[in-house]
Every structure is written in structure tokens, then in C-alpha cells.
């Protein structure tokens, strides 16, 4: 019992920490990676709440697709910046 409680406390602390890091990170790439970490921790939280259906959707859409979209946007932003610097 105490082991699961310790895990839950650790998980909720990590969730709040990653959410905080996502919005306060100075660099965009850090924020995107922390957002993906937050999505994966959220998946674990849904599993702990015994909602595996939502956990699957969160892992696939929240962390996977949205993370890939954000990383792609980041790459496009960076490419635009270097192109402007060259001009």
C-alpha cells in the first residue's frame, strides 16, 4: 500500500513539476520536450486512475502526435531564422 502511495505522490509531483517547467522554460525546445514528458506522465496517471482507454488516447495523440507537430513547428521556426540570418 505504502509503495503505491509513494509512487502516486512521486507521479503527481513530477506532473506538476513538468507542467511548471513546460510554461517557464527559457528555450522553446526545452518547453516542447517537457510537454512530451508531461504527456507521458499524464498517461501513467490515467493508468493509475484505471482509465486505460484515456491513457492510450493520451499517449498516442497528446504525447505522440502533438509532440511531433510541435517538434516540426520548432524545426520550421529554426529553419526560418537561419534563412533570415543568411540574407
Amino acid at each position: 500500500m505504502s509503495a503505491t502511495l509513494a509512487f502516486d505522490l512521486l507521479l503527481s509531483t513530477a506532473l506538476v513539476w513538468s507542467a511548471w517547467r513546460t510554461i517557464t522554460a527559457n528555450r522553446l525546445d526545452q518547453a516542447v520536450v517537457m510537454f512530451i514528458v508531461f504527456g507521458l506522465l499524464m498517461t501513467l496517471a490515467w493508468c493509475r486512475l484505471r482509465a486505460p482507454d484515456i491513457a492510450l488516447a493520451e499517449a498516442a495523440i497528446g504525447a505522440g502526435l502533438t509532440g511531433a507537430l510541435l517538434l516540426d513547428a520548432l524545426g520550421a521556426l529554426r529553419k526560418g531564422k537561419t534563412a533570415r540570418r543568411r540574407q
Partner: protein
Amino acid sequence: MKRAIVIAAALVFGGLLINAIVDLPSSPVDLRIAVADNMANSGVSHPVTAVLLNFRGYDTLLEIAVLLLALIGLMAAGPMLPPPPNQPADALLQKLARIATPPVIVVGGYLLWAGAFRPGGAFQAGAVLAAAMVLLHLSGLLSAWNAQLLPLARRVILVGGFVLFLCISVALLAAGSLLQYPPHQAGLLILLIESGLTLSLAAILAGLFLFLSRDNGGAP
């Protein structure tokens, strides 16, 4: 000083929200009992799938319609530049994407099939397949889509799931009421609808990525 006031206000508001959720009144109708009583007629044995595709199938129909509408809006408003030619990306990345794609397709099919009796279903399966397409695009094996030059087959897949769902609803409407499946055919109809939804959702979710993509994959 200002910061302290903001933090204090946020803490008080957060406390109020937690309090409101903890003291939530119990719902007058226990839906879990209603769902459990009707599971035998639903055609599937997983309660979440039964609710999404049978008892509240209307919501799922509107959901896929909204996603399709979002994609059509994106195609109409998106940039009209033709996507740049695809350059081959890192060889290791391409090899990895080639190895990863077939198992991902199998996982998608499994999730679709598993939805009838355990967690899974069309949405998750579609998202997994869409992720495979995004992976292929990022490794330079699948070029970005151009809204104006989209082949007919892809357009059919994009709208197919919704049209199939709508046709089945209309056919059922003629037989009785909207989306009320006859108990004997319910399982087959749900599998048919979910298969269509999986393909369409995969194309729509990947389309949200591939129509917007302006880069040439993972090429440096």
C-alpha cells in the same frame, strides 16, 4: 508584493476548485448500472466501446464530422505553395522507419480489433497509424500533401469513415431510430464502422500534419 498577492489568489482559487470537485453531488442516475444492464444488446463486451459506438454513437458521428471539418478548413486556409521536393534523410533514420512501420500497422489493426472487448478502438488505432505516417514523412519517405493535388483515393479515405457511418445511421433511421443497431448485427456493424473510422482518422490526423508541413522531412 504583487507577486505574493497573485500567488495567494491562485492558491485560494485552486483550493476552491479542489473543494468544489471533492464535494461534487452524486449523479441522480447511475449510468454504470444502465450500461451494465444493456451490455448484452450492445454487440461488444467492452463498456467504453459500447458507450462510444452504440449507446452514444451520435457523439462519435459528430466527432468525426468535426475532425473532417477541421481538416477541410485547414486545406482551404492553408498555404498554397506546392510542397518542396523530398530529399532523402539520414540513412539510419530511414532504415529505422522502414523497420518500425510494419509492426506499427499491426499494432493499429490489433487496437481496432481489441476495442470490442478491452481498451482500444478506432481512435487509438487511427492515431497509431497516423503516427506511422508522420514518422515516414519525417524520415523523408512520404512527401507532404498538397491540398490542390490530392489524389482521389486519398480524398475517398479522408471522408470514407464519416460517409460510411452516416450511411449506416440513415439506413438504421429508415428501419427504426437513429443509430439503434439490431442486437444481432450490432457487433458486425460496430466493427464495420470502426474499421472505416480507423482509416479515416489515420488519414485526417496525419493530414493535419502533412498538409501543414513545409519542410522536406528530416533532411538537414
